């Protein structure tokens, strides 16, 4: 009798751990996507984009607020329209901020992107109003595998993340523009001497990374509706994912994201749940101190 009970408990525990792993992995892919986006801009401009949580939010607002709710587009054209709108915005931001700022001190760069984020945030509040909005029925629902429950949005996130990663890697390895981007990442001056248009390159990278931002924004709508604070935590964890995976490495960002997603969920089970963010950030600091090149990183930080 007691053996039965123990077995039951073990099975129960097993199920719970499996469920935790699943949601950890799903959130991990979100963090990983954010990390990829950071990495792209970091590689091409050497700046960290501190406004990017607001760009994720902006993408979600443009999609849900402008295209779906205001103009009544159906989901697919709305997604395309959002990405196009964000790319226009990216080009604008690239030419007004990132390109002129590329030779500025890290301090100025950080502060100006932070302020850009604040400006976007306030504009969104003024334009779309303070209430949270959502797109009903967009990617909702769930999939059951045995006792395991996976939100449909999670599955989509994992697929999209993998597709984006694969496309980016292909783009970087095979296309001329991608190769040029890698050159710029390694040495801006040498690249411009070799006839690579560094400014155009930066613009393309920023456009790509902003579109990834907007895609992240779209993907998380079914998880927690569109509101101004929607990306504040995932953007910080995305940083952490990038660093833990190895800054500058695209697959590393995904690995780092998975690491954080899983660790924080397990930690949330052991400690009071609200401490899981603390655990994620402690991991980040430890990683920076013990192995600053990250799990997959090769380059030494200097």
């Amino acid at each position, binding site marked *: 009798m007691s053996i039965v009970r123990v077995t039951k408990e073990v099975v*129960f525990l097993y199920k*719970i751990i499996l*469920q*935790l792993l699943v*949601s950890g992995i799903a*959130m991990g892919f*979100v963090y990983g996507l954010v990390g990829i986006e950071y990495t792209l801009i970091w590689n091409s401009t050497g700046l960290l984009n501190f406004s990017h949580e607001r760009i994720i939010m902006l993408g979600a607002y443009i999609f849900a607020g402008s295209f779906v709710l205001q103009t009544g587009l159906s989901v697919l054209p709305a997604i395309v329209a959002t990405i196009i709108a964000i790319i226009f915005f990216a080009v604008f931001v690239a030419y007004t901020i990132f390109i002129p700022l590329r030779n500025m001190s890290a301090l100025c760069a950080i502060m100006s992107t932070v302020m850009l984020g604040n400006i976007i945030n*306030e504009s969104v*509040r003024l334009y779309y*109003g*303070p*209430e*949270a*909005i*959502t797109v*009903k*029925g967009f990617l*909702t629902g*769930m999939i059951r595998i045995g006792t395991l*429950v996976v*939100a449909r949005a999670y599955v989509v996130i994992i697929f999209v993340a993998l597709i984006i990663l694969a496309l980016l890697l292909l783009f970087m390895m095979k296309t001329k523009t991608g190769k040029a981007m890698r050159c710029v990442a390694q040495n801006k001056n040498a690249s411009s001497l070799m006839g690579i248009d560094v400014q155009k390159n930066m613009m393309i990278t920023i456009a790509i990374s902003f579109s990834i931002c907007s895609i992240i924004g779209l993907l*998380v709508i079914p*998880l*927690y*509706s569109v*509101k*101004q*604070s929607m990306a*504040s*935590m*995932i953007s910080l964890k995305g940083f952490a994912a990038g660093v833990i995976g190895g800054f500058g490495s695209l697959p590393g960002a995904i690995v780092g994201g998975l690491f954080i997603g899983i660790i924080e*969920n397990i930690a*949330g*089970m052991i400690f*009071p*749940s*609200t401490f*899981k*963010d603390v655990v994620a950030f402690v991991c980040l600091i430890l990683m920076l101190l013990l192995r600053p090149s990250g799990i997959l990183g090769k380059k030494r930080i200097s």
Partner: protein
Amino acid sequence: MKRTFSILLAMMLLLTVLAPSVVASEETIKIGLLATLTGYPLNGEHMAKGAQMAVDEINEAGGILGKKVELDIQDVGNTTDVGINSCNLLISNKVVSIVGPHYSSTCLAIENLINAAKIPMLVGGTSPKIAKIDNDYLFRIRASDTMQAVAAAKYLVEGLDAKNVAILYGSDDFGTGGMEIASEHFSSVGVDWVAHPFNNEDTDVTTQILKCITSGCDSVMIWATEAAYPIVARQLYELGLIVPTITNPSLAVDSCLAQLEQEWVEDWYCVTDFLTSNSEEKVQNFIKAYEAKYGTEESVDLHCAAYYSGVKLVADAIERAGSTDTDAIRNALMETKDFEGIIGTMNPNENGEFIHEIILAQCNDLKVSYIKTIGE
């Protein structure tokens, strides 16, 4: 060129700081409103609209004591610093009383200021901590958390026969306050309970819900701000924890319901101080007037109703006091008897709490319907 511009910019910034302040006019009676207009979470706009509507109605009816009423709206952001500044600004603008703020933490930060300035403040902060403060100028125009949470906990135990409750609460002042009161009640009636917090920024509450499931709970109580509902409700449904659930008033706010899917919150209960489906005449009239003023797409919620009532209550008190002396207003407020507010009949107790009733409601097909009113 750039240097000239830089100098001009620098000079401009310096001059802005030295800009003279606006002098308060003596012609009108000023009522201050402290609302969260920037920062998170945002409900200040609704507060401001409700309060403004009250002021407009009063002015249309000829004002108070022959004078027009003016609403001085100031943003408290979501930090205590901005809250302190805006409260001081209102005091220096010579308002006769202050309505708001909505959040208990801001109330706690500024209560000593209004006490020193002897200006009555009618807050919507519901934390039990506020009731414990010895401050003669602090009034509450919403049902306290103590009342709300106890009502919710009582209904879980008595109405829904809960034996083992899981409390999911936001780790902010609001959620923690509700959890403390409810858990105390559960302990006192011998019901098992577990409580799991989540942060407002959390994007995933799987661990918390799994912990609830492991505890073998037969009912759930949620105490959190609106922002948490889309995540918590969805994951409760997905992870299959579908048991009798009762929540704080956030569920009854239309903008919150708009973000939820029908099956997530089917049959959930909530306690609330304002319900659009409440068939009482004063409520329906208020909704009609509000929609006529601001257009129909603007959803009416408890914020509009509570602060509308607050302003009306202050106006009534000034009328009764017959002067704009703040102490007279304060005394008149304390002498209020059966003032008909939109969110209930207002009668002050010795702690300055005006509302002593709460509505129990249930959500069906994303419509929250009235069940009954619970008195204290």
